[in-house]
C-alpha cells in the first residue's frame, strides 16, 4: 500500500484523474465508445506512420551536417514554442481554475507537495501532447536509420520540462508584475503569441526573402546555413540529441530537468498563496466601462447580437484564440503587401488561406453563440420565434468574421478584384457552412466548456474542419479556373450534406 500524502501518492491521484479525463475526452463521456475510439487512434497512428515515411523516410541516414542541423533545430524550436504556449495555458488554468483547489487548500496535506506534483504533471502532459505527432516520425527514422534516433524521445521529455519551467516562470512573473487581475488575460495572449511567433516569423522571413509562404524555404536557404554556428557549437546540442548523440542528449535532459526542479522548488511553496489571490480576483466583479443609466433602443435581434458581441469581447480565452488565428493571418497580409501589384501568383496563395481561416473562426464563434448559451431558458422564453434567435446569433458571428476579413479583402480588391471576389464568396460560404454545422449539432453547454467543444460531437468537429478545407480548395481552384472548381465544390457540398444527414433531429423547445 502506498502511504497517503506522499508525492508518489499525489502523483498517482493526478495520473488517475488525467487518465479518466483523457478517456472521457476520447469517448465523449460514453465508455461503450472506447473500442471505436481505440480503433480510430490505431488508424490515425498507421496513417501518420505512412505520412512520416513519405516525409522523413529518405533522410533517416542523413549525415549531421549544418543543413540537417538547421532543419532539425528549426523543427525543435517550432515544437518548443508550441510547448511553452501549451504549458503557459496549463499553468494559468492551475492558478485560476477552482475545481479541486478549495479541497487541496483546505486539507492538512502539504500543499507545496501537491503543487510540485501538479507542475511536474504539466511538464509530462506537455511532452505527451507532442508524442502523437512525433512518435510516427521517430519510429520511421529508427526503422530506417537505426537506434540512434531513440534519443528523440528523451529530447521530447526534456523539452516538456524546459518549456514548463519557462512557462511557470513567465506566469509567476506576470502574476507579480501585472497582478492577478490581469495575469489570466495577459498570459493567455502571451501564450497565443508565443505559440504562433516562430511559425509566423519564418513565414514572414520567407515572404520577404523568397516571396513564398513556405517556412521551409528559410531553413533550407544557403544564406542561413552559411551563417549558422560551427558544427561543434552548443547551439546544436538539442538537434544532436535528437540525432542520437548520447552526450548531447544527456546534457540536454539533465539541464532541462534541473531547470524544472529549480523552478518547482522556488514556485511550489508560494503556489497556494497565488491560487488564493487568484480566487480573490475571480470572486470580485469587474466594473463595466459604460455607466450610462439609460437603455439604448434596439430590436430583439439587435439585443441578441449586441449581447453576443459583448460576451465575445469579454471572454479572455476566446480573445486569445481569436488573436492567435488573426496572428496566422499576418503572413498572408505581408504576402499581399509584398506582392501588391506584382501579378496573380501570390494572390492565388492567399485565397485558400483566408477562406480556411474564416471557416475555422466561424465554427468556433458559432459554437459559442449557438451551443454555449449560458441562459438558454431565458432566451427560449423570450417572445421571439426560435428562428429569429438563431438568425440573430448567426448574424453576430458573421459580423465578427466581416470585421476581421473585410480589411484584407478591401486591400486584395485593389490589387486583384477577381481574387477578392472569389475570396469573399469563399469566406461567406465557408463561414455559413461552419455556422450551419454548429447549428445542426447544437447542444446545451456552458461557454466555459468551449475548449472541450469537440467532445460533444466528433462528427461536427470533423465536418467543420473538412468543410473549411473543402471550401478553401474550391476557392483556390475557382480563382484559377472557375469551371474546375465544380469538383472540389461538390465534395465540400457533400461534406456539408453528409453532416446534415448525420445530425440529430432538432428538438422542440
Amino acid at each position, binding site marked *: 500500500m502506498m502511504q497517503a500524502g506522499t508525492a508518489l501518492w499525489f502523483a498517482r491521484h493526478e495520473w488517475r484523474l488525467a487518465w479518466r479525463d483523457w478517456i472521457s475526452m476520447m469517448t465523449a463521456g460514453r465508455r461503450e465508445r472506447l473500442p471505436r475510439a481505440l480503433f480510430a487512434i490505431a488508424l490515425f497512428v498507421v496513417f501518420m506512420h505512412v505520412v512520416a515515411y513519405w516525409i522523413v523516410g529518405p533522410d533517416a541516414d542523413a549525415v549531421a551536417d549544418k543543413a540537417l542541423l538547421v532543419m532539425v533545430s528549426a523543427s525543435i524550436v517550432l515544437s518548443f514554442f508550441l510547448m511553452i504556449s501549451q504549458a503557459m495555458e496549463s499553468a494559468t488554468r492551475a492558478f485560476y481554475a477552482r475545481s479541486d483547489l478549495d479541497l487541496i487548500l483546505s486539507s492538512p496535506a502539504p500543499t507545496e507537495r501537491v503543487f510540485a506534483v501538479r507542475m511536474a504533471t504539466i511538464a509530462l502532459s506537455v511532452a505527451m501532447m507532442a508524442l502523437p505527432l512525433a512518435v510516427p516520425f521517430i519510429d520511421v527514422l529508427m526503422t530506417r536509420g537505426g537506434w540512434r534516433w531513440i534519443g528523440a524521445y528523451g529530447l521530447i521529455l526534456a523539452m516538456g520540462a524546459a518549456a514548463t519551467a519557462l512557462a511557470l516562470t513567465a506566469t509567476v512573473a506576470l502574476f507579480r508584475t501585472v497582478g492577478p487581475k490581469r495575469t489570466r488575460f495577459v498570459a493567455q495572449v502571451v501564450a497565443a503569441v508565443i505559440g504562433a511567433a516562430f511559425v509566423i516569423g519564418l513565414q514572414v522571413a520567407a515572404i520577404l526573402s523568397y516571396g513564398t509562404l513556405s517556412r521551409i524555404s528559410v531553413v533550407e536557404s544557403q544564406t542561413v546555413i552559411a551563417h549558422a554556428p560551427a558544427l561543434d557549437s552548443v547551439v546544436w546540442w538539442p538537434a544532436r540529441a535528437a540525432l542520437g548523440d548520447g552526450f548531447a542528449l544527456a546534457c540536454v535532459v539533465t539541464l532541462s530537468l534541473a531547470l524544472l526542479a529549480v523552478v518547482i522548488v522556488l514556485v511550489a511553496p508560494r503556489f497556494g498563496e497565488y491560487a488564493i489571490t487568484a480566487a480573490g480576483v475571480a470572486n470580485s*466583479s469587474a466594473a463595466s466601462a459604460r455607466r450610462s*443609466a439609460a*437603455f439604448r433602443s434596439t430590436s430583439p435581434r439587435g439585443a441578441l447580437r449586441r449581447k453576443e458581441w459583448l460576451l465575445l469581447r469579454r471572454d479572455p480565452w476566446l480573445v486569445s484564440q481569436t488573436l492567435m488565428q488573426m496572428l496566422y493571418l499576418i503572413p498572408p497580409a505581408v504576402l499581399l503587401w509584398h506582392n501588391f501589384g506584382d501579378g496573380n501568383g501570390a494572390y492565388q496563395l492567399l485565397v485558400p488561406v483566408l477562406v480556411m481561416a474564416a471557416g475555422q473562426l466561424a465554427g468556433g464563434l458559432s459554437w459559442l453563440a449557438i451551443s454555449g448559451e449560458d441562459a438558454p431558458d431565458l432566451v427560449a*422564453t423570450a417572445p421571439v420565434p426560435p428562428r429569429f434567435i438563431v438568425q440573430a446569433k448567426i448574424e453576430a458571428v458573421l459580423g465578427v468574421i466581416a470585421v476581421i476579413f473585410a480589411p484584407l479583402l478591401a486591400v486584395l480588391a485593389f490589387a486583384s478584384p477577381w481574387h477578392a471576389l472569389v475570396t469573399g464568396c469563399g469566406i461567406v460560404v465557408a463561414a455559413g457552412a461552419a455556422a450551419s454545422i454548429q447549428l445542426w449539432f447544437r447542444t446545451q453547454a456552458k461557454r466555459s466548456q468551449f475548449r472541450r467543444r469537440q467532445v460533444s460531437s466528433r462528427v461536427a468537429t470533423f465536418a467543420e474542419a473538412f468543410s473549411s478545407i473543402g471550401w478553401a480548395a474550391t476557392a483556390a481552384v475557382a480563382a484559377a479556373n472557375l469551371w474546375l472548381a465544380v469538383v472540389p465544390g461538390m465534395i465540400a457540398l457533400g461534406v456539408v450534406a453528409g453532416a446534415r444527414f448525420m445530425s440529430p433531429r432538432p428538438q422542440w423547445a
Partner: protein
Amino acid sequence: MQHFTSLAPDLFALEIRDLVKCFDRPAVDHLDLTVRAGEFYALLGPNGAGKTTTLRMIAGLLRPDAGTIRVAGIDALADPVRAKHVMAWISDEPMIYDKLTPHEYLEFIAGLWDIAPELASPRAHELLHWLDLLPHAHQRCEGFSKGMRQKVALAGALVHDPQVIILDEPLTGLDAGSARQVKNVLRERVRSGCTIIMTTHILEVAERMADRIGVISRGRLIAEGSLDELRRQAGHRAGHAAGDAAMTVGASLEDTFLALVAEQAEAA
C-alpha cells in the same frame, strides 16, 4: 413595442386542460389546473411529482404530448410568441450571464422583449433599487453570490412587466435577507395585479404567501385550495381511512401536505 397592464380579475391567468407529458414514465398525467388573474398560486409536490415539467411546458420550454395551455387567454401552444410576451420564467438556477453587468442584463432583456427604453430604463432602475442591486449595477455578475444572482434574474423577469410570473423554486439557496427581498417583491407584484405561479419545497413560504395551493403527485393534481380547504380535504380522506377528523383542526401545511401525499402513495 408592447406594454401590458394587469388582467381583469375574472379572467383566468392560466388554464391547463388534460395536459400529458411522458418521458420513460408519465411525468404529467392528464393534469387540469386553473389559476385566476391576480392570484398567488403555490404548486407543491414531492420530488419527481411533475411540478417543474408542468411549469416548463407552460413557459414554452417543453412540448406537451397532449392537452392545452392558455396563458392570459392566449393559446400558448398555438401562439407561443404572444404568450411569452406576457410571461416571465425564473428557475432555481439563475439564468444570467457572468460577463454582463446587471444593468446590461436588464437592457438585453428589455431589448429581447421589445420594451421601449424610456419605459424599461426607469423600471430597471427601480427594480435594482428595490433589490439592493443599485451599488452593483455596473459590476459584472461573475463574482456575485447565489442570492445576488437570483435577484438579478428576478429583476430581469420583472423588467418587461409580465402579467404572469412562473417561478420554479426561486428561494432555493437564498439567505434570509435575500429571500425576504424576493418575497417582498413578489407580494408587491401580486398587489399590483400580477399572477404568480410558484413551486417550492419551503412549505412555510407557500403557507404564508399563497392564495391557493395545489398539491401534485405522480403528475396529477391531488388537492387544491386554501390552507383550510386543504386541511379539510386531508382530514376528510384521513377520516375515511382512520375514522377520525384530526387533520381538520390546526394542522400545519407540512402535516396536511404529507398526509395528502402519503394517501396518494398508498392509493397507488
